[in-house]
């Protein structure tokens, strides 16, 4: 049984790749899958912070690639979910430390260990790290903000996903592309200040797999080192849960894309 490999990518930085990787991996684990999430951002390790395991990193991705540690030693078990593991990026080595053969070895190792899903958190840009993160993927989650530079970069990444992956090179069919719109603000969309879901879908020619509303809870979650999906009361957490369900094949309507209607009391008393 081979693990399904999902790359979380975007081109542009700061759009929510790591937030998404953390919540996606946690959501898949909550659905009972055995999941590993790998930080591909060599030199700029951050997934460990978002997952709340930064003080438990002993060995990293590059250590495994170089044979300095086994996969078992390097995988950090999540505190909340028994079937969720984190593989941290290396902080100190140069970017060339990551090779295609090395990545393949780690991914094969995870398949052998019975993992159902491997989530690859891509670095920003279209350089080597981003290329390696997407190369072996079966599915891609392209994270995009409703903002011009992010949308343009996403189109570039969609083009690369269609041609620069192992599946594309071997002619095994294109990888499944999912578009995830994050930092969405329905109030600003309603007054014409922000691109709408439909705008982004039309420009990129691909439908969204989820829309994550801009939410204070995302910062709170990262402050605490708990993926936002764990916070079932937050809208962002619920939107991520919906997204994970859709990736697993369930059909769920989009939520939180319209301005919330004020209740009777709110209308009378304001607020």
């Amino acid at each position, binding site marked *: 049984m081979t693990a399904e490999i999902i790359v979380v990518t975007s081109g542009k930085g700061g759009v929510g790749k790591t937030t998404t990787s953390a919540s996606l991996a946690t959501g898949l684990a909550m659905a009972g899958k055995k999941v590993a999430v790998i930080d591909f951002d060599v030199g700029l390790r951050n997934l460990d912070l978002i997952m709340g395991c930064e003080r438990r990193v002993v060995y990293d991705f590059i250590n495994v690639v170089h044979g300095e540690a086994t996969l078992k030693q390097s995988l950090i078990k999540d505190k909340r979910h028994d079937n969720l593991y984190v593989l941290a990026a290396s902080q100190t080595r140069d970017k060339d430390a990551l090779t295609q053969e090395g990545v393949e070895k780690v991914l094969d190792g995870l398949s052998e260990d019975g993992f159902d899903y491997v989530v690859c958190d891509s670095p920003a840009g279209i350089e080597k790290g981003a290329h390696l993160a997407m190369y072996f993927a079966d599915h891609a989650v392209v994270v995009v903000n409703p903002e*011009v530079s992010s*949308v343009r970069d996403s*189109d570039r990444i969609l*083009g690369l996903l269609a041609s620069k992956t192992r599946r594309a090179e071997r002619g095994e069919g294109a990888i499944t592309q999912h578009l995830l719109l994050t930092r969405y603000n329905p109030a600003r969309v309603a007054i014409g*200040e*922000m*691109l709408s879901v439909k705008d982004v879908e039309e420009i990129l020619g691909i439908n969204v797999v989820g829309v994550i509303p801009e939410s204070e809870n995302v910062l709170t979650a990262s402050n605490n080192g708990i993926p936002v999906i764990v916070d079932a009361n937050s809208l962002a957490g619920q939107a991520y849960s919906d997204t994970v369900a859709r990736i697993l094949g369930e059909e769920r309507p989009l939520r939180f894309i319209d301005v919330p209607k004020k209740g009777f009391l709110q209308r009378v008393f304001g607020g």
Partner: protein
Amino acid sequence: MGILDFLKRKPEPTATVARERLRIIVAQERSTRGAPDYLPMMRNELLEVIKKYVHVDIEAININLERDSGHEILELSVTLPDGKSAGKAGSEAKTG
């Protein structure tokens, strides 16, 4: 003031501006995706040649690369200006 505000034509929403700008740039970048690196330079040189005869803007030149099974088609389209100015530019080129 309220009435004046009502009468004033509302400016175009910025999201609409963003959408139109993105439509154009994304379409343009897709048309040259995976194309050889010399394409932009070739486009500029072609523009220089065309400019000798007709006065056109760089935006009037569109290069499209299409891949069919086994072969590639390089399509070049030039949008000529209105008849009047084109004729003028043409006659200038002849006399020059």
